[in-house]
């Protein structure tokens, strides 16, 4: 126990002494502060910016490149749609081909037109807006012809519906942003610190420091101390950044739009935070142990990447499953994966926050997670012990499995 503390302190010292770590943490804290201050900046600089933007889709029509098929159309439509740009369809085609204009419309009738463009893109907002405008004009014309007051018809058709939704369970929409934020944070944390712990183990082997370590302490102490210290450093780093977010948020809270406030505060209840912490920390530890064990299988630092590929691959899959879960937290796949420890670290908290999860499911998933962490810690200690003094060729899994039989 005493030695564990010694190893832990030493490893922590090694981590904290890294200038790169301190600098990146500081930079990320500053970025977090800046991002949380964006609403305040928007209030300072762009007070009426939103109104300026909305001017575009009002009466003053968009500038279309137009050709009217006949004089009647030209006379009745040009005050609303705009003046003719080219006198014939051929001229328009030529202009488009010569790239003088990107596209243009040939109005053939009140309810028929040809759109001429060079390359077809999937979606043309220009065409859509033109079409809707033409449609409205045609409707108005028909109303007037039939002696109906088009103004009145418009008013009747545009009656707003007032609505209010009462969520008895959970509101998935408002938590998605947070789910995604935590997901990205955990993803980066595990990838960065996983690689860190694997490299650290491999470096001890590479430099033959392992010879001294393994003869003056036991493998369990060494790996526990290392995983503990590296793990804590990661958590501290995240905590520092999170603190900056909280500080930034608190300072600028007054300038946040209500919608955003609801999104941030509505879903973050105490139990959600606890579930997040439980699963994130356990999952993090689980991955760190595996990374440490894999790091001990190679003799050179440069081989670490290939050694950790399998677990990184699994982890990236878990990440994709989780991204899917943020969009469809009720999906069966998400439910199933929230019981698989390597993935549940992401999916269970997301499910818990965005949907209603029975307490039994939560407990079962937590139990599976805890048991897996303990099992994999034991397995990692074994692999580490086996790998620590094996130099030369990279060890294969079958060698490790063979070693169990003893």
């Amino acid at each position, binding site marked *: 126990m005493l030695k564990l503390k010694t190893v832990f302190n030493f490893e922590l010292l*090694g981590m904290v002494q890294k200038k790169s770590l301190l600098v990146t943490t500081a930079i990320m804290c500053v970025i977090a502060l800046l991002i949380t201050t964006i609403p305040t900046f928007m209030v300072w600089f762009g007070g009426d910016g939103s109104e300026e933007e909305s001017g575009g889709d009002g009466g003053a029509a968009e500038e279309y490149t137009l050709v009217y098929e006949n004089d009647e159309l030209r006379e009745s439509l040009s005050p609303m749609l705009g003046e003719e740009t080219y006198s014939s369809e051929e001229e328009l085609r030529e202009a488009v081909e010569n790239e003088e204009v990107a596209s243009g419309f040939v109005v053939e009738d009140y309810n028929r037109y040809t759109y001429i463009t060079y390359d077809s893109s999937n979606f043309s907002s220009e065409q859509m807006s033109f079409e809707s405008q033409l449609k409205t004009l045609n409707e108005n014309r028909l109303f007037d012809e039939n002696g109906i007051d088009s103004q009145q018809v418009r008013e009747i058709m545009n009656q707003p519906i007032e609505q209010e939704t009462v969520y008895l369970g959970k509101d998935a929409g408002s938590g998605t942003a947070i789910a995604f934020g935590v997901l990205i944070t955990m993803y980066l944390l595990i990838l960065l610190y996983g690689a860190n712990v694997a490299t650290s183990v491999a470096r001890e082997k590479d430099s033959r420091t392992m*010879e001294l370590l393994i003869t003056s302490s036991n493998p369990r102490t060494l790996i526990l101390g290392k995983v503990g210290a590296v793990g804590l450093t990661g958590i501290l780093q995240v905590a520092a950044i999170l603190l900056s977010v909280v500080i930034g948020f608190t300072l600028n809270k007054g300038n946040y739009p209500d919608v955003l406030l609801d999104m941030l505060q509505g879903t973050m209840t105490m139990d959600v935070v606890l579930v997040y912490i439980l699963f994130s920390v356990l999952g993090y530890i689980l991955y760190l142990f595996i990374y440490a064990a894999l790091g001990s299988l190679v003799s050179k630092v440069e081989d670490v990447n290939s050694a950790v590929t399998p677990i990184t691959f699994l982890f990236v899959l878990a990440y994709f499953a989780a991204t899917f879960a943020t969009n469809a937290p009720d999906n069966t796949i998400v439910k199933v994966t929230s019981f698989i420890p390597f993935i549940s670290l992401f999916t269970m908290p997301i499910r818990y926050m965005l949907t209603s999860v029975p307490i039994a499911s939560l407990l079962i998933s937590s139990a599976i997670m805890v048991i897996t962490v303990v099992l994999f810690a034991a397995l990692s200690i074994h692999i580490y012990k086996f790998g620590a003094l094996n130099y030369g060729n990279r060890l294969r899994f079958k060698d490790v499995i063979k070693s169990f039989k003893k």
Partner: protein
Amino acid sequence: MDLVIEDLNKSFNDKQVLKGINLKIKSGQIFGYLGRNGAGKTTSMRILMDVFKADSGSITMDGKEFKTTDYRIGYLPEERGMYGKFKVKDQLVYFAELRGASKKEAQHSMKKWAEEFGIDIYLDQKLETLSKGNQQKVQIAQAFICEPDILILDEPFSGLDPVNSKIFQDSLLNYIREDRIIIFSSHQMGYIESFCDDIAIINNGQIVLAGDLNIIRKQMGEGKLRLRFADQQSRDFLAGYDYTIEKEDVILTLPPSETKKSFIEGLFSRGIELTMFMDYLPSLQEIFIEKTGDNHVKA
């Protein structure tokens, strides 16, 4: 203190690395442990340090079961390395603490051995910024730190320049005490001959020779003589004898039918003049080659 290893066996992947090792290592002297590469030296040392468990066999200290936790063990491995990115003092204290010292004791001992090896001015520097020679001194200091009860040195002289070698030799000789066991493993026979009283030679996982080096040399030289003739022609007398020539000397194996006395009388009766006549004592190198060389050649 008597450290006794009995009938130690160890296999890796069906390959038996140690085959019934027996060793008796006494405190108050330096024990020389010899063997060719891959003979099983490091494996047996690692079992002693509890890195591996033996498949069978026992290790006792003064008759009681040997537990690594009851003793401080200092180790200088053949392949050395420490943390390049850490300050010298931090890692020396760390290794001392891993060995069971308190923080205070570790710091005190760290200063003492750093001074002994002349690296005290580098304590606040990162190891990787030191010259190779100074890095070696740090590694040697690491083995001595906190005065281990058992000091295991695997090829301690490899890579040391003559000056560092001398510093290390002096420290090693000063370190001998009645309550300390020192195990010295090396290929450099000269050092073993000059430092060690008891030796053991391991070959293919078996101890092929063990005991007091002086007695071993006498035994191995028994029935052999070292002669130096006054003139080369006199060597003709040796026709029919089993002998080898070593520079000016003749190393002769007496046939069972003859004694030293009868042999020398035979020389004198023919008027052959000798400038030297003595019992032959083989060098450790010769003993080592005799005990470990043939088997490997045959294999």
